[in-house]
């Protein structure tokens, strides 16, 4: 073992070459484009205009932009709440119970990861729109409209980010095994007591990790939301939709400013995740 470690630690020309390649690759693909976004965010809009933080702030405080971010945060919040509750439930079901169709359910749970979000949006429209949807008419008759409203946005976002929480919890549940839970049962704890006092503390970090990841994913969701939302100013325009709309309408500075905020949120999420990982391993 000691030998292989030494070979890895050796600094030959190949190591430097690989390192340079990775850095160049990341720079071309990620760092440089994102830097451009940041640069544009703080750039003056027109010749003679003022740039910097003041301009950035001004673009963000536009009521339509505030509305978009409010909507995004609301949608992401509810999507994460729903996904956390269902995610923990489905994970327990998948790992702790044997039932016919368990494997199929396990595959279905992964589906939102592989299906394009646009398809998700289309599917939701087909199922819930009032015109031709399967449930749309029935729901509309009791005054509940899914397509074109905030619940619809939440649904689309929850659909897309569903696997993130589950995929974090399932391996942890499998690893800790059911012995401790059975021990708790034999000591007199009922299902809820066992879950709260034994299972939840063991999967705590996995849940937090999953929540942060799906929060990041939900804030940035575009495709599914694009189909479901009316997508007009003050009417279902989320932050990502706002960026696209403004960009195509030659209001690029606002688009860049909003994009920059989304990038910041993602970076924040990544920092939180890496801190959790450290905590988890200690």
């Amino acid at each position, binding site marked *: 073992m000691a030998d292989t470690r030494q070979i890895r630690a050796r600094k030959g020309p190949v190591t430097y070459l690989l390192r340079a390649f990775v850095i160049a690759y990341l720079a071309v693909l990620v760092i440089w484009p994102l830097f451009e976004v940041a640069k544009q965010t703080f750039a003056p809009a027109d010749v003679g205009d003022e740039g910097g933080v003041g301009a950035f702030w001004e673009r963000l405080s536009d009521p339509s932009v505030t509305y978009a971010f409010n909507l995004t945060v609301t949608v992401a919040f509810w999507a994460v709440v729903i996904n956390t509750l269902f995610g923990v439930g489905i994970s327990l079901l998948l790992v702790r119970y044997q039932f016919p169709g368990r494997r199929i359910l396990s595959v279905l749970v992964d589906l939102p990861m592989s299906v394009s979000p646009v398809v998700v949006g289309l599917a939701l429209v087909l199922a819930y729109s009032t015109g031709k949807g399967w449930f749309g008419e029935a729901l509309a008759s009791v005054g509940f409209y899914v397509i074109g409203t905030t619940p619809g946005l939440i649904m689309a976002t929850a659909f897309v980010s569903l696997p993130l929480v589950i995929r974090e919890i399932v391996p942890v549940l499998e690893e800790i095994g059911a012995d401790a839970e059975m021990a708790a049962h034999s*000591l007199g704890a009922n299902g809820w007591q066992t879950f709260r006092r034994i299972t939840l503390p063991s999967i705590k970090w996995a849940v937090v990790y999953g929540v942060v990841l799906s929060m990041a994913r939900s804030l940035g969701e575009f495709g599914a939301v694009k189909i479901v939302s009316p997508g007009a100013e003050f009417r279902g325009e989320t932050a990502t939709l706002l960026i696209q709309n403004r960009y195509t309408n030659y209001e690029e500075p606002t688009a860049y400013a909003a994009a920059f905020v989304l990038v910041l949120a993602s970076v924040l999420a990544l920092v939180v995740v890496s801190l959790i990982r450290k905590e988890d391993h200690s």
Partner: protein
Amino acid sequence: MSIEVRGVGKRYGDFIALDDINVSLPTGQLTALLGPSGGGKSTLLRIIAGLESTDGGSVEIEGVDATKLPPQKRNVGFVFQHYAVFKHMTVAKNVAFGLEIRKRPKAEVKTKVAELLELVHLSQFAHRLPSQLSGGQRQRLALARALAVEPSVLLLDEPFGALDAKVRKELRDWLRRLHDEVHVTTVFVTHDQEEALEVADEIVVINEGRIEQIGSPDQLYDEPANDFVMGFLGAVTQLGPLRLRPHDIEVAVSPGVPGSSPGVVLRALRVGFEVRLTVEIEGQAEPVLVVLSRTHARALDLELGSQVWLSPATGATTVPAFGVPRPEAVVS
């Protein structure tokens, strides 16, 4: 009777884990469920605990029909092979768990936990996390935790299986002494016949989902009901028409004893204080295994190729041999 099992069976698809088991375990005793891996003994224990459902029959604990009761209503203590301690709780919290679930007053919980930690010699570790304990200490913790709720029966599933040989032996003695102190009806599963013979008041031998024999360690050893029980409780070899223990064979260097079989020493293996001989005798395909003490072997001046005469010792436990002896019985 503390535990009454009647007509219990369990199938997993085509595999029959348990087949119509009937057994009653008396109050206050230490009973071992002994048998090879996959023989169904753990399944039976888990059915008694309610961690596994039975396909038919009934389980009665302290006169109460527990067949349909969930584990938390059966008042049993269960100890797992891999401890199943609550990793995120301190040693004291682990022990207190069952009492807190039962909403006992705080002061009572505290005294009880202190008492139990004293009993399992873990008092000085009360505020540690289980990860800071050794395997043996974790298993003692698991025992204290199970005892805390004052169960009517204590069930242990291969409690020492994950420990190394020395700790295993210590804990075995300790369990025996503990049982003499607390007298709770205890059932433990093991595949180690030495463990069962040493610790248990009564042994239930289970193989292929069926009970082979129930009896005290002496009964089982001296009067095995069948070939399997005899083979499982210790090494067995065949001498002429008889199956008997290798240490129950007398070795002579001259044809003195009437009916003794002449043979030649093929191999001699010394393990510590004993010498294991492989002797080829005339008219028998399978060689005979003989175990004798180092001193005895030296006194007889035995070496490879020595001519010996073998005969069953007086008072030896024997069963008649049917056809070819089962190889696993000879090896064990």
